[in-house]
C-alpha cells in the first residue's frame, strides 16, 4: 500500500488496530483517518474503550512487537510509520513525537527521581554529559512552573503533589522539543483550578514550540477552548469530526449530543446529568450489528431499520464536518435545534 505522501504534518489513513485474544478479536481501532497540521490542536473525545488511547499509542509505535495487528497508514512529516521498522520508530519517539500520559504517579517510575527520568529522556536523543542533561532537566522543570527546580529535581515522584507531577510529566515529554505532542487525559486526576493551569501551560508551550498537539479526553469541556478540531470516537470508529465550533454549536451525532449533555458546567450541580447515555460502551468483540451505537441510541427507531442492519458511513455534511449516522441530515438538524439545544439552554 503505497499512497503518495500527504502534505499534512500528521495524517492517519484507515488505521486499524486489532488485538487477537482468547475471547475473540478485539477491534480497538477500526478504520480511522484524520489530518493534523503543525501548530494546530486536535481533541479526541470518547468513553473509555472507544479506542482513543490505542490510536495514539499506535502513532507512537508502542504496539509494535506486541500482539496487535496494525494496518492502514500513519504519515508523520512525510514518513510512513506503520510499515517502518520498530527501531526507526523508536528513534522518533521522544524526539519527534512525545506523549503526556494520564495518572503520572503510575506513569513515572517510582524508584527513580524525577530529574533522573527527565535526564534519561533527554540523553537518549542528545549525546551530552549527565551534568548538562541535569541542567536541562532543571530548566525544563522551571519552565513548566515547578518552584525551586534545582532542589526538586532530586525528589521522587511520590514526593510531588498531583499537579506538580503532571507538570514534571510535561517537562519530560517536552524535553526534546517534540513536533507532535499527544496528551492522554492530562488533567483527569487534577482538581479544577490546577486543570486550568496545566491546560494553559500546554497551549503556551505548544505555541512556543509550534508543535502539533493531540489532546485525548472523555471530557468535552477540556477540549472546548484549546482545540481547533475535535474528533469523537465510539467503538473504535470516528463518529463525528469537525471544527470546535461545528462540534459545540452544530453537533449532528446522537452520541455527541450525549457527550455535550453530560458536560459538567459551572452553572449546574456537578452530579446532575442532563442527557444521560443509557447502557454501557459496546463490546469490541461482538460489535452490535449495524450502527455500533444503536443499542444506546434514543433515535434508532427513526432510521427505518437501517440502524441494526447497516454500518453507517462517515459522510461530510458541510465544509470539513463529518458525521457517521443513518438519520437524514435534516432530521439531525431539527432534533438538535428543536429538542436538544433548548433543553440544554433552559437549565
Amino acid at each position, binding site marked *: 500500500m503505497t499512497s503518495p505522501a500527504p502534505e499534512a504534518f500528521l495524517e492517519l489513513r484507515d488505521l486499524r*488496530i486489532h488485538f487477537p485474544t*482468547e*475471547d475473540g478479536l478485539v477491534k*480497538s481501532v477500526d478504520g480511522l483517518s484524520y489530518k493534523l497540521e503543525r501548530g494546530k490542536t486536535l481533541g479526541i473525545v470518547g468513553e*473509555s*474503550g472507544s479506542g482513543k488511547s*490505542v490510536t495514539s499509542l499506535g502513532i507512537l509505535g508502542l504496539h509494535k512487537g506486541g500482539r496487535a495487528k496494525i494496518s492502514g497508514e500513519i504519515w508523520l512529516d512525510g514518513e510512513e510509520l506503520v510499515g517502518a521498522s520498530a527501531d526507526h520508530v523508536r528513534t522518533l519517539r521522544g524526539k519527534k513525537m512525545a506523549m503526556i500520559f494520564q495518572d503520572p504517579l503510575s506513569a513515572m517510575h517510582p524508584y527513580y527521581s524525577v530529574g533522573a527520568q527527565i535526564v534519561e529522556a533527554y540523553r537518549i536523543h542528545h549525546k551530552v554529559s549527565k551534568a548538562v542533561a541535569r541542567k536541562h532537566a532543571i530548566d525544563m522543570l522551571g519552565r513548566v512552573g515547578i518552584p525551586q527546580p534545582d532542589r526538586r529535581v532530586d525528589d521522587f515522584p511520590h514526593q510531588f503533589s498531583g499537579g506538580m507531577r503532571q507538570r514534571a510529566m510535561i517537562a519530560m515529554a517536552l524535553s526534546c522539543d517534540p513536533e507532535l505532542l499527544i496528551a492522554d487525559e492530562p488533567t483527569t486526576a487534577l482538581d479544577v483550578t490546577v486543570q486550568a493551569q496545566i491546560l494553559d501551560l500546554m497551549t503556551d508551550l505548544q505555541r512556543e514550540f509550534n508543535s502539533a498537539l493531540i489532546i485525548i479526553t472523555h471530557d468535552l469541556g477540556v477540549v472546548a477552548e484549546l482545540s481547533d478540531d475535535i474528533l469523537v470516537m465510539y467503538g473504535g470508529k470516528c463518529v463525528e469530526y469537525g471544527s470546535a465550533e461545528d462540534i459545540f454549536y452544530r453537533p449532528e451525532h446522537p452520541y455527541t449530543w450525549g457527550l455535550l449533555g453530560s458536560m459538567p458546567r459551572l452553572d449546574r450541580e456537578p452530579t446532575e446529568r442532563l442527557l444521560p447515555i443509557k447502557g*454501557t*460502551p459496546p463490546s469490541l*468483540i461482538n460489535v452490535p450489528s449495524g450502527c455500533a451505537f444503536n443499542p444506546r441510541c434514543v433515535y434508532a427507531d427513526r432510521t427505518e431499520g437501517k440502524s441494526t442492519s447497516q454500518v453507517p458511513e462517515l459522510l461530510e455534511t458541510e465544509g470539513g464536518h463529518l458525521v457517521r449516522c443513518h438519520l437524514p441530515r435534516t432530521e439531525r438538524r431539527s432534533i438538535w435545534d428543536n429538542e436538544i439545544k433548548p433543553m440544554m439552554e433552559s437549565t
Partner: protein
Amino acid sequence: MEAKPEAVLEGAGGKAIEGRSLGRIAWMRLKRDKAAIIGAFVVLFLTLVAIFAERPFGGLIALFGDSPNIPNNDLIDPLTSAPIGAWGGISLEHPFGLEPVNGRDLFARILSGAQISLLVAFLATLLSVVVGSLMGVLAGFFGGWVDTVISRLMDVFLAFPLLLFAIAIVGALPDRALGLSGNGLRIAVIVFIIGFFSWPYIARIVRGQTLSLREREFVDAARSLGAGNGYIIFREMLPNLVAPILVYATLLIPTNILFEAALSFLGVGVNEPQASWGGMLTRAVDYYQIAPHFMIVPGLAIFITVMAFNLLGDGLRDALDPRAR
C-alpha cells in the same frame, strides 16, 4: 458517564469485553485451559479414589486384592529384605510392587495413604481459610489497632520456624486428649497445626482485598442506608472475597499435602500401620538402593497429586484474575 466501570474489563490494549458475570467469564476461561482441566480431572479422580478406597465393603482396595496392612513374608528375600522378583515384586496381584521387609502391598498402601493425605490437606485448608478469612476481613475492615494487632500476629507466626515447631509439638503430644486417641487425635492435631500455621497466608490476601473493597462505592452505599458492620462484612464483603479465597485455598491444598508428607517423612505423621505417603518415603530411605520402587511409588503419588492441585489452582487463578497470568 453512566457507564459502570466495574462491568468493563479493560485489558492491556484498552479492549473491553461485554459485561458478562465474572463467574461465567471465569468458567469460560477455565474450560479453555487444558492443563487446568486435566488437573481438575486428576483431582476429582484422586478424591473419588480416596473416598472409596476402603468403603463401602472394603472399597477399591478389596476390589483389587490385598489389604494394606497384611504382610507377605513369603514374597520377601529373607537375606536382603527386598521383595522377590523384578521391579520390587510388581505383578498382577501387586501392581505397584511390595514393601521391603514385610511384603505389604504397595497399591493398597498408596490408596490407603491417599485418604490421609487428602483428608488432612482438605481439613487443614478449611481451617486456615476460616481463620485466615476472618482475621483478614477484621484487619482490613476495621483497620487501626485491630489491623496492627492482627498484622503483628501474622509477623510473629511467620517468624516461627514452622516445620520445627510442628515436629516438636506433634512429638510432645499426649496419648489421649479431647476425647480422641490414636490416629484420630493424631490427624486432628496435624490438621490443627498445618491449618493454624498457614492462616496468615490467606489472611494477607484477604486483608489486601478487604482494604480495597472497603473504599468501593457499594460499601458506602450500604453504610449510608444504615447497614451495620456485620451486615456489610457478611453480605457485602464476603461474596466479593469468595473468588480470591477460592483461588488461594486451591493453591494451599498442595502446600498442605506436602506439609503433611514432610511431617510423616520426619516421623511425626499418622501412626503405623496406617499408611501415609511421607511415612512410606521414610522407610524407603533405608532401602532405596535395593528396592528403588519403594521410593518411586509414593514419591510419584505425592508428585502427581500436588501437581494436579497446582494445575487446577493456577488455572483458577488465571481464570478469575486475568492480570495475574
